[in-house]
């Protein structure tokens, strides 16, 4: 699951008040956890200046004998899959609980997106103590993650792009309301609807508004949509499972990279990166009876698709 179970004291997301600035006239826009340099007219090397505050009582992440003089570093931990770079830059104490550091960025060396967070690191080990991380380089606290965009954010649609078409169903599909046509191997399937259905049902299915007719439409569509998600997910997980060497969902062929990312966030709550990691792990897990993968298909997925289509909310409207 996306939740990291930590057996020892860990101050999750407690490093706060992150502030960003830049020099050399390179401009940026900030939107909560995202920072955009893509619009800057000046594209020259610059320093990303980062400041952050440790939480009050951060020393409690260390064992009692160490608290008077804890062995620690505060770092900017960064990773850019687009630039193929990752690393850690040590920060300096400014005053009280505040730390600062400059991360030098050159557009000729970096590209795309950089993810960063601040971490409190133990820089000296001590004897094992129950309830505490005691090894050198253990992470004891972190901040929320921020995304720095040096180029325009990839605005590819995240799913929701399923095409549909009316079709006169023949023998194989007769009696069915819909089926998914997988004929185009690299694309999402096309949702085929039986044009031989009763005209009044067609009117309901294509109704755009609310009211009684809208409720009837939702009562038909919501379980159908849940089933479609489940079918698409089964195919997507199969592709991911076949790709035994894929550790990053972005590497899957279009559109399955986007589909699996959407599914990961549907199934696993919390941080997107953790969710994707969980999905990859389960799909690649080689246990004897495929227990983890079966659990994904049989238990986690059916519940997630119901949440995705708000099935309970639709039924509650009947009250």
């Amino acid at each position, binding site marked *: 699951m996306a939740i990291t179970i930590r057996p020892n004291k860990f101050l999750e997301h407690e490093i706060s008040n992150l502030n960003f600035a830049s020099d050399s006239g390179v401009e940026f826009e900030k939107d909560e956890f995202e920072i955009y340099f893509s619009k800057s007219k000046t594209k020259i090397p610059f320093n990303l200046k980062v400041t952050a505050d440790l939480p009050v009582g951060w020393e409690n992440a260390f064992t009692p004998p160490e608290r008077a003089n804890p062995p620690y570093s505060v770092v900017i931990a960064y990773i850019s899959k687009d630039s*193929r770079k990752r690393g850690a830059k040590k920060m300096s104490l400014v005053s009280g609980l505040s730390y600062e550091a400059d991360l030098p960025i050159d*557009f000729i060396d970096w590209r795309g997106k950089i993810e960063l967070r601040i971490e409190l690191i133990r820089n000296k080990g001590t004897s094992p103590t129950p309830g505490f991380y005691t090894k050198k380089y*253990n992470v004891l606290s972190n901040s929320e993650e921020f995304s720095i965009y040096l180029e325009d954010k990839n605005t590819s649609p995240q799913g929701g792009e399923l095409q549909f078409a009316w079709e006169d169903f023949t023998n194989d599909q007769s009696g069915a309301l819909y089926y998914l046509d997988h004929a185009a191997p690299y694309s999402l399937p096309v949702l085929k609807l039986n044009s031989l259905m009763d005209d009044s049902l067609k009117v309901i299915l294509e109704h755009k508004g609310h009211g009684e007719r809208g409720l009837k439409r939702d009562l038909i569509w919501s379980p159908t949509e849940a089933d479609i998600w489940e079918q698409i997910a089964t195919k997507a997980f199969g592709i991911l499972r076949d790709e035994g060497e894929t550790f990053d969902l972005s590497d899957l062929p279009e559109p399955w990279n986007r589909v699996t990312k959407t599914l990961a966030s549907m199934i696993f709550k919390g941080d997107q990166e953790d969710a994707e990691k969980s999905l990859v792990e389960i799909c690649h897990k080689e246990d004897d009876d495929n227990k983890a993968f079966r659990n994904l298909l049989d238990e986690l997925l059916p519940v997630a698709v119901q949440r995705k289509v708000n099935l309970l909310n639709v039924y509650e409207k009947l009250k």
Partner: protein
Amino acid sequence: MAKKIQIEIYTKALQIKDYLEWTADSSQFETTQLQYSIDIKPLRKEIDSIKNNPQFINDKASSDCVLAKVAHKVFKKLPNSVLTDNRFWQWIALNEFLDYSIWRWDMTPENIDQQANILRHVISGRGVGGLSRNSISRLVIPCVDLFISPSDYSLVDILFQNQQTEQSLTQSMQSMNPKTFRAMVKSVKGLDGDGVKEKIKRLNALSDSYNLDLMTEVEIQNTIN
């Protein structure tokens, strides 16, 4: 005689479904010219030589290491922003070295039809996974971090000791830190595919509670082993 070419990138990255249209008329896919030029002749010559060498006919993977060293010398002067751009690698793999990809990965029309993902060796995606699959970037990128001197490509030799080693290591998120990458390569010397996988699993497990990026190369190596 040198064959200098001006570098281009596809303005919009190609997708696997574009391949047939590209083969029909590649000019319909817009490119952007960059300010850099390279001499690709040494790589062209080595590829032609390898394709005609009976030694490699039944063991094409063993040619990777030979080609990697030549490819690195050809591309090493390009800046990181180009070397990590899948639109560049798509362009060069399709326009200059498609014959090599067809030979190396048996990219016959039948195989493409049965297994479309084989096209990812030319129409590669973003990130470390894409770089590790593109026929040309997979030879060049590891050398950027593993190159020691013009006469010492010993770490490159270890990386290409078998295909499992190369794939597992280059697709690991930890390989984006040169120190970690070098430590990983040193620690898998002589191991088979399963042994390499075990090391990667151990490293991934450690990354949950350690900041590996602060460690020295020796510390990482000791931690993995």
